[in-house]
C-alpha cells in the first residue's frame, strides 16, 4: 500500500488548479487547515514582535526606545493581532479544520466552499489590519477593546481596525456554522454523541459560542464605525448615548470569546493526556459536560470586566457569583486530566510535556482569575499589570502552550515528517522558564499598583520590569528553538509512521499524511474514542 502516491497523501492529489492556486482555491479541509496554520503562525510572530518591543520599552522608566504614542499603537496592534488573528481562529481554524472531519470519520466538512470563503475573509481582514500601519492618521491607539469616548475622538485609523475585526468575525462565524453542521450530520456510522473524541466536543461547544457571540461584536464595531463617520451618538453622552453601553455590547461578545480561545485548547489537552498516559481518559462524560457548561455559563459573566466602570452593587455581586461558578467546570477538567495520569504509564514525549506545562500555567491563570472575579480585590487590581499577567497565563500559558502541544502532537500526521524530540523538549523548557520570568513579576507589579497600558512608570517598579523584559528574551529564544526545530523536521525530518504516538482516535488509523479523501471506506465506530484493547 505504500506507493509514492500514498506517501505524499493529499499533498500529491491533483485538483482543478496548480501551484499556489491548488492551495488558495482548495476546498479540501486539510489544505485549508494548513493555509490557516501558516497564516495564523505568521500573525502570531508579528504579534510577538510587537510584544517584545513593548517589553523593551518598559526595560527602564521613561522613554527608552519609543514615545507614548508609538507605545499606544504597539499595545493596540499587539492586542488586535493576537486576539482576532491568532488566538480566536488559532486552534479551531487550523487543527480543527484539519482534524475535525478525520476525528469523526468524515471526508470533509459540511460546507467545503464556505470553509474556503472563511479563510479568504480572514486574509482580507488581516490585510486591512496591517494596512492601518501605513494609513494616514497613523496606526490605531485605542486598545484592542476600542472603548469610547477615546476611540471615537482619536484621529488614528481606528475605523479601519474595527472594520478588520468586523470582517474577521465573518470568518469565525463561518467556521463555527460549518463545524456544528459537520458534527451533527457527518459523524461516521456508530459514532454516537458520547463516542465522539473530546477535541470535536470542544470544537462543538466553541462553534456555538462563535455563532452566537460573534454577531454581537459585529454590530458593536459597526456602530462604532457609524459613530465615528456620522456621529450617531449611541455612545456619546452629549447626544444622550452612554459609553457604558459600548462596554456591555463589547464584552457580551468578548467575554464568551475567551472561551472560544480556551475551549479548543482544553480539547487538545484532553486528546493528548490519555494517549501519553496509555489510559482511557478519566471521566469522559464529566469533561463533555464541563465543556458544554463553560460554553453556556460563559455567556453570563461579561459584567466582571466592568466592576469599576459603573454598575449597580446588585449587578456586581451577581456577575461576581456567576464568574466563580464558571470556574468550576474548568476545575473539573483539571482534576480529570490529573486523574487520567494517575497510575498511567506516562510517556514524556514533547506533546505531553507541553500539555503538562499547560495544566500548570492554566491553573495559575485560572486561580488568579478568581482573584479578579471577587469584587473587592478586583477594584484593587483593575487595569493593573495583575490583569495582564492573569490574561497571559490563561491565554498564552493556556491556549498558546496547548497550541504548541497540538502542533507537536499532530505534526507527524499533518506533514508526514518527524522532528527532534530532544530539541522539542528543550524548547518547551526554555519557553516555560521564560514565560514565568516574563509574566510572574507582572502579578507583583500589578498588586503594587503598576497600571497597564503606560509606556512609563515610577522608579520603584524598575526591578520587576527589568526581570520581565529579560524573561521576554528567554521566551522568544525558546520560541525560536521550537520554530527552527519544526522547520528542520519539515524539510529534513524522517518520514512519520501512521501512528507514532500509539493513539486510539481515528486520525491515527489512516496514513501520514492522510490521503485526499481521508478514508477509503467510512469507518464504523463500535466503541468510545480512548478505549485500549489491552484494558
Amino acid at each position, binding site marked *: 500500500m505504500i506507493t509514492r502516491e500514498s506517501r505524499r497523501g493529499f499533498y500529491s492529489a491533483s485538483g482543478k488548479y496548480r501551484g499556489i492556486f491548488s492551495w488558495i482555491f482548495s476546498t479540501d479541509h486539510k489544505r485549508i487547515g494548513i493555509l490557516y496554520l501558516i497564516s495564523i503562525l505568521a500573525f502570531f510572530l508579528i504579534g510577538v514582535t510587537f510584544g517584545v518591543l513593548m517589553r523593551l520599552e518598559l526595560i527602564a522608566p521613561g522613554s527608552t526606545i519609543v514615545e507614548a504614542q508609538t507605545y499606544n499603537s504597539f499595545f493596540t496592534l499587539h492586542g488586535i493581532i493576537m486576539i482576532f488573528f491568532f488566538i480566536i481562529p488559532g486552534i479551531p481554524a487550523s487543527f480543527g479544520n484539519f482534524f475535525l472531519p478525520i476525528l469523526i470519520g468524515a471526508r*470533509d466538512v459540511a460546507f467545503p466552499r464556505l470553509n474556503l470563503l472563511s479563510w479568504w475573509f480572514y486574509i482580507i481582514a488581516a490585510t486591512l489590519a496591517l494596512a492601518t500601519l501605513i494609513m494616514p492618521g497613523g496606526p490605531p491607539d485605542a486598545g484592542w477593546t476600542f472603548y469610547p469616548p477615546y476611540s471615537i475622538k482619536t484621529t488614528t485609523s481606528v475605523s479601519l481596525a474595527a472594520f478588520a475585526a468586523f470582517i474577521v468575525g465573518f470568518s469565525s462565524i463561518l467556521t463555527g456554522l*460549518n463545524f456544528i453542521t459537520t458534527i*451533527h450530520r457527518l459523524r461516521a456510522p456508530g459514532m454516537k454523541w458520547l463516542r465522539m473524541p473530546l477535541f470535536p466536543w470542544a470544537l462543538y461547544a466553541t462553534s456555538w459560542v462563535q455563532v452566537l457571540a460573534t454577531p454581537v461584536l459585529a*454590530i*458593536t464595531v*459597526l456602530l462604532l464605525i*457609524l459613530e465615528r463617520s456620522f456621529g450617531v451618538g449611541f455612545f456619546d453622552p452629549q447626544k444622550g448615548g452612554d459609553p457604558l453601553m459600548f462596554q*456591555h455590547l463589547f464584552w457580551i461578545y468578548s467575554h464568551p470569546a475567551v472561551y472560544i480561545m480556551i475551549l479548543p485548547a482544553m480539547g487538545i489537552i484532553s486528546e493528548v493526556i490519555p494517549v501519553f498516559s496509555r489510559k482511557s481518559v478519566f471521566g469522559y462524560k464529566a469533561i463533555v459536560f464541563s465543556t458544554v457548561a463553560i460554553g453556556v455559563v460563559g455567556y453570563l459573566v461579561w459584567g466582571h470586566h466592568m466592576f469599576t466602570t459603573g454598575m449597580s452593587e446588585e449587578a456586581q455581586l451577581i456577575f461576581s457569583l456567576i464568574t466563580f461558578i464558571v470556574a468550576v467546570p474548568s476545575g473539573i477538567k483539571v482534576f480529570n486530566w490529573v486523574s487520567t495520569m494517575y497510575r498511567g504509564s506516562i510517556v514524556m514525549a514533547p506533546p505531553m510535556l507541553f500539555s503538562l506545562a499547560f495544566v500548570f500555567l492554566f491553573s495559575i491563570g485560572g486561580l488568579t482569575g478568581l482573584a479578579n472575579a471577587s469584587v473587592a480585590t478586583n477594584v484593587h487590581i483593575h487595569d493593573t499589570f495583575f490583569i495582564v499577567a492573569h490574561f497571559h497565563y490563561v491565554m498564552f500559558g493556556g491556549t498558546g502552550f496547548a497550541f504548541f502541544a497540538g502542533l507537536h502532537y499532530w505534526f507527524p500526521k499533518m506533514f508526514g515528517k518527524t522532528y527532534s524530540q530532544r530539541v522539542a523538549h528543550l524548547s518547551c523548557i526554555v519557553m516555560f522558564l521564560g514565560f514565568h520570568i516574563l509574566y510572574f513579576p507582572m502579578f507583583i507589579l500589578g498588586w503594587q499598583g503598576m497600571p497597564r497600558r503606560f509606556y512609563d512608570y515610577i522608579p520603584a517598579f524598575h526591578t520587576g520590569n527589568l526581570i520581565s523584559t529579560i524573561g521576554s528574551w528567554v521566551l522568544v529564544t525558546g520560541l525560536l528553538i521550537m520554530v527552527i526545530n519544526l522547520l528542520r523536521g519539515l524539510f529534513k525530518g524522517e518520514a512519520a509512521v501512521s501512528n507514532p504516538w500509539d493513539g486510539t482516535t481515528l486520525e491515527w488509523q489512516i496514513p501520514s499524511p492522510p490521503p485526499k479523501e481521508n478514508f477509503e471506506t467510512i469507518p464504523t465506530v463500535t466503541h468510545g474514542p480512548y478505549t485500549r484493547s489491552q484494558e
Partner: protein
Amino acid sequence: MNATNTTTDTAHETHVDYIGSKMGMWLFLFTEILFFGGLFLLYAVYRSSFSQEFYTTSAQLDMTIGAINTIVLITSSLTMAFSITAIKNGAARLSALYQLLTIIFALVFLIIKYYEWSAKIGHGIYPGSDALLSQGQGTIIFYSLYFVMTGIHGIHVLAGIVIIAVMINMTTKNKISEKDFVRLENTGLYWHFVDVVWVYLFPLLYLIG
C-alpha cells in the same frame, strides 16, 4: 438532528445534504438575530431612559407609510412562499414568476423607504445634523436608532433582492428544480427573517407614539 445511518451515508458520499443545508441556514439566521439583537438591546435601554421623548418623537414618523410598507413586505413573504410551493410541484416557470414578484414588492418597499428618508433628511433630520442636535437627547437617540435600524434592515432587503435575482437565474437554468430546491428554500428562510425583523421594527419605531 437524529440522522439515521442511511441519510448520514448519503451525506458522506454525495456532498448533497438537505438537512445539513437547512441547518446551516438556521445557524446563519441565529447570527442575524443576535446581530439585530445588539440594536434591540440599545433600543430597550434608551427607551427606558427617554420614554417620554421616544413617545413624542415616534409620533413624528408617518404611521400610514409604515403600515403600507408592512403590508408590502408581508405580501412579498407570501409570494416567496408561493414560489417554493410552485417549485416543489415542478412548476419552475411559475416559481420564477413568484420570485420576480417578490423582488418587485421588495423594490416597492425600498422606494417608499427612500421617500421617507428623503423627507426626514429634507427637514434636516439625520444623524449628526445641526437640526437634530439642537433637539433633546431622547429625540437624537430615537432618530439615530431609526436611521441605523431601518438602514441596516434596508441593506438586508437589498441583499435579499440580489440573492432572489440569482435564484431566478438558477430556476430558469434548471439548477433549482423539484429535485433540488434547498437553495430556494434557504433564500425563503432568509427573506422571511428580513420580514420578521421589520414586523418588530414597525411597532417599536412607528406605533409607540
